[in-house]
């Protein structure tokens, strides 16, 4: 699963994979449009629904946060 998420992130914006900070959105590494692209691709790939309440900058802080978010939704 992680590999597929990383592939999606690379497809949307390859800088996500090399970013090692903890505020990817705040630092302008990704845009709000890219956040929505990631959500859309992940929902489609894993047949899950990511509720709007989870679309907050903390959950898109870096690639690890995104993977953790997807895992927690799938496990719920």
């Amino acid at each position, binding site marked *: 699963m992680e590999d597929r998420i990383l592939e999606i992130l690379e497809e949307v914006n390859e800088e996500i994979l090399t970013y090692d900070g903890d505020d990817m*959105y*705040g630092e302008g590494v990704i*845009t*709000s*449009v890219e*956040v*929505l692209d990631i*959500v*859309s691709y992940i*929902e*489609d790939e894993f*047949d899950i*629904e*990511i509720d*709007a*309440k989870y*679309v*907050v*900058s903390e959950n*898109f802080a870096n690639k690890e946060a995104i993977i953790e978010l997807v895992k927690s939704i799938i496990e719920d």
Partner: protein
Amino acid sequence: MNNCVYDKVIIIGYGQIVNDCIKTLNEYRNKYGFEYIYIEYENTSISNSISLCEKEGINYLQIGDKQKLTEYFLEECEKTLIVSAGNFYIFPGNVVEKDNITIINFHSALLPKYPGRNAQTWAIFNGEKEAGATWHFVTKELDAGKYIIQKACRITENTKAYELTGEIMKVAHEAFVEIIENVLLDKYEKIQDLYIDPNRKIYKGKDIPGDGRFNLTDSVDYIYLLLRATDYGKSDIFPPMKTVINDKEVIISSYRLVDKDKEINKNENILSQSEKITDIIVDEKSVFIPYNDEKILRLRYKNTDF
């Protein structure tokens, strides 16, 4: 010597565009020394304008009440420029007409087309090939003041509303960078010299393309257009599109134009007999609609009574 005519600059709005404009204006604050405040009227889950202000040392206020915000502007007595970017507060006439206040606003359309709400949606839905941003002076009539600058961006056959929003924000900021210093120096004519039709259509928030529904018998191009035009990701600007499947009303939870061969491989149980899919195929949670020789429009749906 050029002098800024404003003692105070207020910026109001949310999203990427306001963040970009906050940073640009901050450079001019350092140059011209005006008092500078950001006002957050609406925020979203991913809004980070306040933290940007804290980081940049910019004063800010959070005023979520329309009446209080109006009172705040009415009490303003300094020579003030208000920059409205991604802002849903509509300035009332008594604020607009204050002698000491000038307001510029960014509208997400190439005015005079698509005044009002959700301009991107209507541009896509009406098959426009381009959309764009207009910075204009604010008057009592909505989106009708003198245009300062306009910049266009393309709409492709796959553009979704949230993607177009992002593109428009980019060109809007580019345009802002071009004009802001001359706005501060009061170098633009403020009187509208174009005829604005008093009976023009002003799009309202409650207007929804296709009345929010489609039929599976509609053309696939129309269905895809309708879904793209109303797709703002997780923002609930529009309710999910509805259609009827097997005599039951359902909502469309997602849609995607997918590669036909890959989709057949992924859904062998459903599509195995359909290497040349020419008909709509419905299963318990998806609808597959032929789009062209290579693509299928795949819709995922949910019952409305869950």
